[in-house]
C-alpha cells in the first residue's frame, strides 16, 4: 500500500514541476492532466472512490478541455516566453522555496497527536453516504454554488462576448 502512495506522490510532484517548467502551453496542459490522474489515484488510496471519478471527469475532462480549447482558439501554442533575466527567475525560485520552507517549519513545530472525531469506517467515500450528507447538511451551500455557477456564466458572457455591450 505504502509503495503506491509514494509512487503516486513522487509522480505528482514531478509532473507538477514539469507543468511549471514546460516550454509550450500544450505540453504543460498534458503534464497537468497527468498530475490530476496521480491525485485521483491518491483519492482512490484514501478510499474516496467516487471523488476520484468525479475529480478525473471534472478536472481532466472539463477544465483541461477548456484550456486546450482556448489555446487552440487563440493559437497560443507558440512558446513566446520572453526570457527573463536570470536573477529575476532565481529570485522567484528562491521565493517559492522560502515560502515552502517557512510553511513546513511552522507546521513542523506542531505535534500531530490530535484525535479523530468519530470512529473509523472506511465506507465514507461511497456515493450513498456522500449523497446523504450532501443533500442534508450541505444543501444550502449546494444552492449557493448553483448561484455561483450562474454568476460565472453571466460573467464569462459579459467579458468574452464580442460586440460593443
Amino acid at each position, binding site marked *: 500500500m505504502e509503495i503506491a502512495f509514494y509512487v503516486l506522490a513522487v509522480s505528482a510532484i514531478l509532473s507538477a514541476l514539469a507543468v511549471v517548467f514546460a516550454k509550450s502551453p500544450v505540453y504543460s496542459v498534458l503534464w497537468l492532466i497527468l498530475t490530476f490522474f496521480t491525485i485521483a489515484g491518491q483519492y482512490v488510496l484514501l478510499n474516496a472512490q467516487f471523488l476520484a471519478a468525479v475529480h478525473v471527469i471534472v478536472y481532466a475532462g472539463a477544465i483541461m478541455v477548456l484550456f486546450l480549447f482556448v489555446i487552440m482558439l487563440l493559437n497560443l501554442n507558440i512558446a513566446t516566453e520572453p526570457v527573463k533575466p536570470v536573477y529575476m527567475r532565481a*529570485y*522567484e525560485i528562491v*521565493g*517559492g522555496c*522560502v*515560502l515552502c520552507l*517557512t*510553511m513546513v*517549519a*511552522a507546521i513542523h*513545530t506542531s505535534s500531530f497527536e490530535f484525535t479523530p472525531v468519530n470512529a473509523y469506517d472506511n465506507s465514507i467515500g461511497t456515493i450513498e453516504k456522500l449523497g446523504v450528507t450532501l443533500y442534508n447538511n450541505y444543501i444550502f451551500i449546494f444552492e449557493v454554488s448553483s448561484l455561483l455557477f450562474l454568476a460565472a456564466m453571466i460573467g464569462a458572457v459579459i467579458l468574452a462576448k464580442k460586440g460593443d455591450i
Partner: protein
Amino acid sequence: MNLTFAQIALAALPFLPLAGFAVNGLWGRRFKETTIGIVGCGSILLSFLLSVFLFMANLSGSFATVQVRLFDWIPVANGSIGFSLMADPLSLIMLLVITGVGLLIHLYSVGYMHGDAGFARFFAYLNLFIFFMLLLVLADNFLLLFAGWEGVGLCSFLLIGFWFTNESYNAAAKKAFVMNRIGDLGFLLGMFLIVFTYGSLNFDQVFTAAATAGGANNATIIAITLLLFWGACGKSAQIPLYTWLPDAMAGPTPVSALIHAATMVTAGIYLVARCHVLFSLAPFTLSVVLAVGVATALLAATIALFQTDIKKVLAYSTVSQLGYMFAALGTGAYVAGLFHVVTHAFFKALLFLGAGAVIHALHHEQDLRNMGGLRTELPFVYRIFLVGTLAISGIPVFSGFFSKDEILMNVFQHHTVAWGLLFIGALLTTFYMFRLLALAFWGEKRGHHANYVPMNTTMKLPLAVLAFLSFAGGFAGLPEFTGLNWLHHYLSPVFSDVTLHNEPHLSIGVELGLMAFTVLAIAGVIWFYASRFKHLQTRELNQLNGELPWYKKLPANKYYVDEWYNRLLVQPINRLSDFLYRVADTLIIDGLVNRIGGMVLSAGNRARKLQSGDIGIYLYVMLAGASGLFLLYVLLGS
C-alpha cells in the same frame, strides 16, 4: 462714615490735578490758552491751599497723621491692600514742596509755552504728573507708592518726548522710561520680599513687624533695603542708572525744572526716608547708600565742569546734589537729607527757570559758547540767577549754606573721608556754578542774538518768589546748636524711633570751626575764579573748540559711560534679537517643523513608487509577505 474735614481734604487732594488733567486733556484743544492756563494752575493752586490747610492743622496738633481708605485694591497674602492715602509730617513737607514749586512752575510755563501747538497737552501732562507725585507721596502702602512711582516715570516719558516730531527727543524719552523701569524691577522684587517676609505691604504693619523682628543686618533686611535703594537709584539718577537725566533735558525747561530738579528725582530720597525703619536696621545698606551718594556727587560735579549746554550743567549739578542728599541719608541724618531736598527744590527750580528765561530770550539757544554778557541785557534774570548760584554754592545766609552744611556736619561726624570728598565736591559745585554764571552773564557778548524776547509777568513772578525762597528757605532749619532747628523738631515724631544716631553731638566749637572753614574755602574759590574768569574763559573756549588736554577729555565726554552702556547692553541685545529671530526662530525651530513636513511628503513620494504596476512583482511581494508572516509567527509563537 464720620470723615473729618481733614480726611475729605486728604482724599480730594490728589484728584484735583487729575480733574485738571481730564479737563485739559479732553477739551483742551477747544479752549484758548488762557483758560487752559487757568484750569491747569487753578487745580494746582487748590491742591496747594489744601496742603497748606493740612499743614496748618497738623502744626496746630489737631492730628498727628490722617488716613483715609477709598476702596480696597488688591487682596495680597491674608490682608488686602487698599487704595488708601495717609499724610504725616514727612509727606506734608514733601506735599508743600511739590504743590508749591509745582504751582510756581505752572505759572511760569504759561508764559514760557505761549504759542506752542501742544499747549493744552503740556498742561494736561503736567497736571497728570502732579497727580502721580501726590499719589506717591500720600500712599500708605508700598503698592500705591509703586503705582505713583511708575506714574511719574510715565509722565516724565511723555514730557521729555513732548516735542515728539524730533527723533532724538523720542529716543531720550524711551531711554528715561526704560532705565526707570530697570530701577522699578528692583523695587518690585523688594516689595515681593517684603510681602514674603512680613505678609503685608502697608507701611505701618511692615514697619512694626520689622521693628519687633529686630536683628540688624540679617540677610532679608539687607536684601530688601538694597532692592529698594536700587529702585531709588533708578528714579533719583544715582551712579549706575543716572545717564537718563542729562538726556532728559530734551524736554521743555519747565519740565526739567519741575520733574528733573524739584520733585520726581527726590522720590527716591522720600522712599528711603519713608522706610527709614528698615534702612536703620541694615547699616550695611546705609554704608552703600553713603558710598553711592558720595561717588555720584563727585562724578557728576567733575562732569558738570566741562559741559557747554546750560541745561546739561544744571542736570549734572542736580545729580551731584542728589548724591549729597543720599550721602546724608547714608549717615542716618534723614532730616538733613530732607532739608536739603527742600532747599534744593527752591534754588534748583530757580536756576532752571532762570536758564529757561535765558533760553526763552535767546530764541531757544542753549549753547553757552554763543552766550555771554547778558548781565546788562537781562538784568532781572541775572539778579535771580546770581541768588540761585550763591544759594547752591553754600554762601552763608542763603538756604544752600544751611542744608549743605548740616549734611557736611553729619557726614563729618560719621565718616571723615566721605566728608573730605563731599567738601571737594562742594568746591567743585561752586566752581562750575560760577563758570556757568560767567560764561552766560559776564564777559563780552558772543553769538549773534539781537532782539531778546521780553518776559511777561507770569514768568517774572515765580522767579521772584523762588529767589526769595532760596534766600529765606534756609532759616527753616538753623544749625543744631542754635536750638532753633524747626524742621528737626517738626519731623522728630516721624523719625522718633531712629535711635542709631544720638551719639554725643560734636562740640559747638568744632561745628563752628568746620562751618567757618568751608565758608572760607568757598569764598576763596569764588574770589579766585572772579578775578581771572576772563583768562580762564578764553583758554577754555579755545580748548573746547580745539583739542582738550588728556585730563580734561575724560570728564568732558562724561567718562564715556553712555558709550559703554551702549556697547555692553544695548547693541548686544539688538544683535541677539536679530540672531534669535533669523537663526533660532526661522531656521532652527520653524525649519525643524517644515523639515518634518517635507520628510513626510518625500516618504509619501517613495511609498507611491512602491506600487510598480507589474503583476509579477505584486505576487512576489505578497507571497514574500505571507512567508514573512509565517516567519514572524514561528519566532513569536514558540
